[in-house]
């Protein structure tokens, strides 16, 4: 009975090594599949201030909207479907809802609407759905997944009517909703936004210059550093946790993995908000340009975190929270255009791509 105490909850880590110059590298599809990104944090060694191009890209990331108490049947409104969803330009996520307690909603750019409902809500809604993969003894969570671009869900069709009636009169699901800014201006959303209380937010950018940092010796050859220790160290740097492990401090016993070296300065930049895969691609391009310059250190890292309470993870697969719902990936880029990619997920998650 107590054997379980030694085991920590299951986690998954997928490690991938390739080069940007290789045509068959899957990086762009792996980045593309995580639709909802909460935070991107970058670590640039031997750098004291952000390069101007990187700063420009960070400032040009689109803002996003937060709509308070949006009834979810509005996402099935005909006008909204035609102008935003069918063009494949908008994505959104419910806000202030916990995936293991409440009903959560995600609208993906490919037109899939995913509702993660608890048992009572699912039974009241009355639409076909599947029990969650992560249910244990009893079915307490259900997932309703609808393809809004499918012909069966065209406005006026039976499936569409049933879902709209369910959301409008039977379940009346209302949550705060984060909506991404569609490319080409927010005109298509104006009709929807004008009916509800909304606010526009810019992603929050934070930048921290670190001094005298001990860091592992990272080279692009095989197994230079154990992935778990490396990710732990990157997380400690991002959270501003000291890795000195001095005997007088009881707060943290995290250490920098061996073999290590000392850096006189480094820059940690993070941006938080509702970020899309396109934004992540642009940031990766900028860091590659930065690494191309001759006078810099050998490597740079970029870590992307997904939303803990998102109902979907990579590729629209279901995501849940057992004790923690982190799903993230960490890209370590080198001067010679090679990279190491580590994708991690928690207990209630499917394997990352």
């Amino acid at each position, binding site marked *: 009975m107590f054997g379980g*105490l030694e085991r920590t909850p299951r986690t998954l880590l997928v490690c991938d090594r390739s080069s940007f110059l290789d045509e068959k590298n899957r990086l762009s599809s792996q980045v593309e599949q995580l639709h909802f990104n909460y935070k991107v944090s970058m670590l640039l060694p031997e750098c004291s201030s952000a390069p101007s191009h990187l700063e420009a890209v960070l400032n040009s990331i689109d803002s996003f909207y937060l709509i308070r108490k949006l009834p979810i049947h509005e996402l099935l409104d005909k006008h909204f479907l035609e102008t935003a969803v069918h063009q494949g330009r908008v994505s959104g996520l419910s806000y202030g809802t916990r995936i293991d*307690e409440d009903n959560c909603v995600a609208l993906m750019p490919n037109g899939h609407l995913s509702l993660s409902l608890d048992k009572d809500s699912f*039974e009241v809604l009355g639409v076909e759905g599947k029990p969650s993969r992560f249910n244990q003894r009893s079915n307490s969570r259900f997932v309703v997944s609808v393809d809004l671009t499918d012909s069966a869900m065209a406005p006026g069709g039976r499936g569409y009517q049933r879902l709209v009636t369910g959301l409008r009169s*039977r379940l009346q699901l209302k949550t705060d909703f984060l909506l991404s800014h569609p490319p080409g201006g927010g005109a298509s959303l104006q009709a929807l936004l004008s009916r509800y209380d909304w606010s526009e937010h810019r992603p929050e950018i934070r930048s921290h210059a670190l001094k005298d940092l001990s860091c592992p010796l990272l080279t692009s050859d095989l197994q230079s550093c154990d992935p778990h220790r490396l990710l732990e160290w990157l997380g400690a740097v991002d959270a501003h946790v000291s890795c000195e492990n001095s005997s007088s401090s009881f707060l943290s016993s995290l250490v920098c993995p061996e073999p290590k070296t000392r850096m006189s300065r480094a820059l940690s930049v993070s941006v938080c908000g509702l970020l899309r895969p396109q934004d992540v691609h642009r940031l990766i391009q900028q860091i590659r340009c930065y690494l191309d310059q001759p006078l810099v250190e050998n490597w740079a890292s970029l870590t992307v975190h997904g939303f803990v309470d998102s109902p979907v993870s990579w590729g629209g697969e279901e995501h849940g929270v*057992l004790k923690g719902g982190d799903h993230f990936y960490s890209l370590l880029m080198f001067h010679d255009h090679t990279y190491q990619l580590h994708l991690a997920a928690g207990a209630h998650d499917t394997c990352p791509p």
Partner: protein
Amino acid sequence: MAVFMDLNVGFSAERSRMTSLIETAAHLGFSTVAVNYVFEPTAQKKPEIPTPTPIRELIDPLPVVQGRSRPIRVLNRLTVVMSDSSHFRPNAAEYRGFDLLAVQPTTEKLFHAACMLYDVDIICISVTEKLPFFFKRAPVNGAVDRGVVFEVSYSAAIRDSTRRRYTIANAVSLMESCKGKNVILSSAAEKPLELRGPYDITNLGLLFGLSEAGTKEAVSSTCRSVVLHAETRKSASGIVYTMKSCSESSGQQGAPPDCRSSGQQGALPDCRSSGQQGALPDCRSSGQQGALPDCRSSGQQGAPPDSGEGAPAAKRAKPHLTSD
């Protein structure tokens, strides 16, 4: 999964302490708490069963749960500490003011009776002393079949190290008999500092011998089952409710309480699985998620029949799962 609940928060007469307790619980992430009134009759003196204070007098307005957008829901609960079988009077009128009914047996005979016969929702396992009896499979399985849950409270473990040993020992022996089913974990907190967050209690459950999923259920789904079971006690098998309406004419429409003995309460968490799957949500006025909490927080004592909605009670209609 269901929302996190803490079904045992100790009542105290000081309003400021209750306010800070409920605010701390909302801040930690609990969506429902139950204020526990302990009733301990002894042979010498026969105290009165306490009447629950209206929630509005304890705390007003209800704080919003951290991370969600709903206010916390506060229920009333009565725990009867029994040392003799006459202490618990079945169908006493005073019990109607409480949403949840719990009993704490102190002898083996009383434990057996509580598991098999008594109409309660929760059986408390004492954590302040070494258990005078062992748990036998038969009454424990009987209780599981009826939908009664066992409760282990953890704040005694925070207060005192001897009680920590008793808590863990008693909890482990309970888990061996019941295999982790129908267990809830709750604080019996008297001060805000004795409350712990739901994920911390999930970890504590591992020490008691529950599995990872089982311990998370103990704080969420099983608590939801208890609250639903308690609601069925006030109605006929959870299908037919009586509600006071604005006009006097609608009156009682429910079947008499005796029909409950036809065993319809079933095994929880599917207490509604007697085929009428749509019934209970409908009684919450057309499926609105917030309906029951809303009618509670309108200052009533927490008993659903007094919602005054004016609608006739027998809402068996519209089982939504049939495909059109």
